[in-house]
């Protein structure tokens, strides 16, 4: 019995404990990923009266509040950089992370109809949720550049590392998002913990303050919060601080890789039940 060699063959088997991450298949479905991101962005902008302005308003308002209370009144040290830029620079990756977390944690449940009616690698859903924040990020980035120009801050050569840090931010958001989205399908109360999680995570991350307030010997431990590495990395790449936050960053990168890889495998394992449970 010959089957034409050009026809793909699919084997359907009962659920198994471990499956591969399936990167090749993800690549085949890249167009779907694009369309899901496009859909989320388009719908979001069609529905809001402010549209693209919202991408700027949120971090700007936070920056203003932080600058007033932490920068001006409490006089939190900001490594010799004007406080507003200092905090706005950190708000960019933070915003991306927070948005990604909120969207991805509920992404599978929100797309329940897709998941129960069509086949595609389910990883596409939380990835699309995370990437959806890139548009806002890009818009806010322009504002950051304007602010830097206003304060006369010229980036050093370190700026070439910026794409790396952006990637790190996405990986962090994705890593945590994968765990949360898979957990949320089974345990629906996970979604309600996100708000609280983001709130306290914000304070654990050096957005309103500098990580230099943490004593040197504790800084690697502080790096266990991957967003600490991301934020300090951003500041170093863009605002030209004196030295790279090496130890902190190294710990953060390791944590991100562990969380991401762990998240991918956990997700792929739970994926086999999604259509039944969601």
């Amino acid at each position: 019995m010959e089957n034409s060699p050009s026809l793909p063959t699919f084997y359907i088997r009962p659920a198994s404990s471990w499956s591969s991450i399936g990167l090749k298949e993800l690549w085949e479905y890249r167009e779907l990923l694009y369309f899901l991101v496009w859909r989320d962005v388009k719908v979001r902008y069609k529905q809001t009266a402010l549209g693209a302005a919202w991408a700027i308003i949120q971090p700007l308002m936070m920056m203003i509040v932080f600058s007033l209370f932490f920068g001006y009144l409490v006089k939190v040290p900001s490594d010799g950089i004007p406080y507003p830029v200092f905090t706005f620079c950190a708000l960019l990756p933070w915003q991306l992370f927070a948005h990604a977390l909120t969207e991805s944690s509920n992404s599978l449940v929100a797309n329940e109809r897709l998941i129960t009616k069509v086949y595609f690698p389910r990883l596409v859903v939380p990835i699309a949720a995370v990437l959806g924040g890139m548009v806002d990020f890009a818009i806010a980035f322009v504002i950051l550049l304007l602010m830097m120009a206003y304060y006369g801050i010229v980036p050093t050569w370190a700026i070439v590392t910026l794409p790396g840090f952006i990637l790190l931010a996405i990986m962090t958001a994705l890593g945590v998002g994968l765990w949360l989205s898979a957990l949320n399908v089974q345990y629906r109360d996970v979604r309600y913990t996100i708000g609280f999680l983001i709130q306290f995570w914000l304070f654990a991350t050096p957005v309103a303050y500098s990580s230099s307030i943490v004593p040197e010997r504790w800084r690697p431990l502080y790096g266990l919060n991957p967003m600490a590495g991301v934020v300090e990395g951003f500041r170093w790449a863009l605002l030209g601080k004196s030295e790279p936050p090496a130890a902190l960053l190294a710990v953060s990168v390791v944590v991100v890789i562990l969380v991401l890889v762990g998240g991918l495998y956990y997700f792929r394992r739970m994926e086999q039940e999604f259509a039944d449970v969601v």
Partner: protein
Amino acid sequence: MSEIPIAIRCEGLSKQYRIGERESYKALRDVITDAAGAPFRRIRTALGNGNGSSNGNSNSEIENSFWALDDVSFEVRRGEVVGIIGRNGAGKSTLLKILSRITKPTRGHAEIHGRVGSLLEVGTGFHPELTGRENIYLNAAILGMRKTEVERKFDEIIAFAEVEKFVDTPVKRYSSGMYVRLAFAVAAHLEPEILIVDEVLAVGDAQFQKKCLGKIGEVAQGGRTVLFVSHNMGAIRNLCSEAIWLDRGQITARGQSVQIVDQYLRSISRSSGSSINLSRAHRYPGFGERLKIKSILFNGGNPIQHGEALTVIMEFQTTSEIHSVALGFGFSSYEGTRLMTSDTDFVQPQRDVPKNFDGTVETTIPHLDLHPGRYNLDIGARSGSSNFLDYLAGCAQIEVLPGPTTPASAMRGGRGLCISAPWLWSEFPGNGNSGNSLVNADNDLTMESDRLA
């Protein structure tokens, strides 16, 4: 000599679902409290106490699960069009979901050779805020069409859906008919090697359903493999060469579609052929008090067929003397539009009925011209022309089956009367030849109009 290659092969496919009084969602806090209480529970059972609160107790686990599919094995060769029929809950949708890789089997395995396009629902992924054009791209991507393919077929899709003027309006402004047409239009232009279709045609009006079936027929004739689940026996007979009958998760029969459909229909009408007991049916206050209709029986329990005689026997009971009584029944469409009525006083006078009387009324309708399909049954009794004594609307579902004189082109989609009467064509050159384009302009599916002439 080469054999036709296999497109789908399943062996021992089984799927178990958990059911239970509680929702299957767990909360993390429940998991934590369960885990905390586990050691105490173990001590309790070790000490020989009863079941107590059973969380994951093995007895309740057995009660709380059922097998939607049980050891299903079959093969489908490339190019075959196979229908899957069965009652609701037989496992048809579960089978399709497993073959579409949406859910995994609990046991067994399957092989699929070729790309699969699944139509398990129409308009999957449509977003109301996006325009028709945007939704076409989105939906096509979801179904697995490449962007270039969509662009190539874009105009065809719009033409099929007949929404040219509205392509740039948000879909939330579409009528439900337009919505469904657009959704199906995208799906209809999928070109997978294997097409799996699940009752998507249950929505939409008759004309649209005919169009969809026509398109599926085209796909089938194009040499692709099709698995088609439907309750529309006419479509199954016309489109599918073979049919598989699933019942309670198992394959009951497989063979030529006409025979399998016949077997299936005979079995369901047997089970629903007994008299319909109405004494406990829900009635609005005030009805069924002075006179109560107890039961209705069609054809002595035998199947009701289009074009054949229909005998009806109604039993009723009174609690007081009533003047000018008439009883009757009617068939209504799904949406509640009354399609047919027959009352005892249409050709005969109303009757006065004594108190505490058990009576029956019966009639024989010489031939029932109602289209094969499902109808809602309405039953009533009145005194005079408008004083209702008892009224039960939509109290049962009645299936009218195709009969020996039912034309093959009478599909379920058109409700109401289906009247077989001869037509005379005016003279023109080529009259009586098949393939005359003027004649066949509207017949998507069959050329059987020739048979009637």
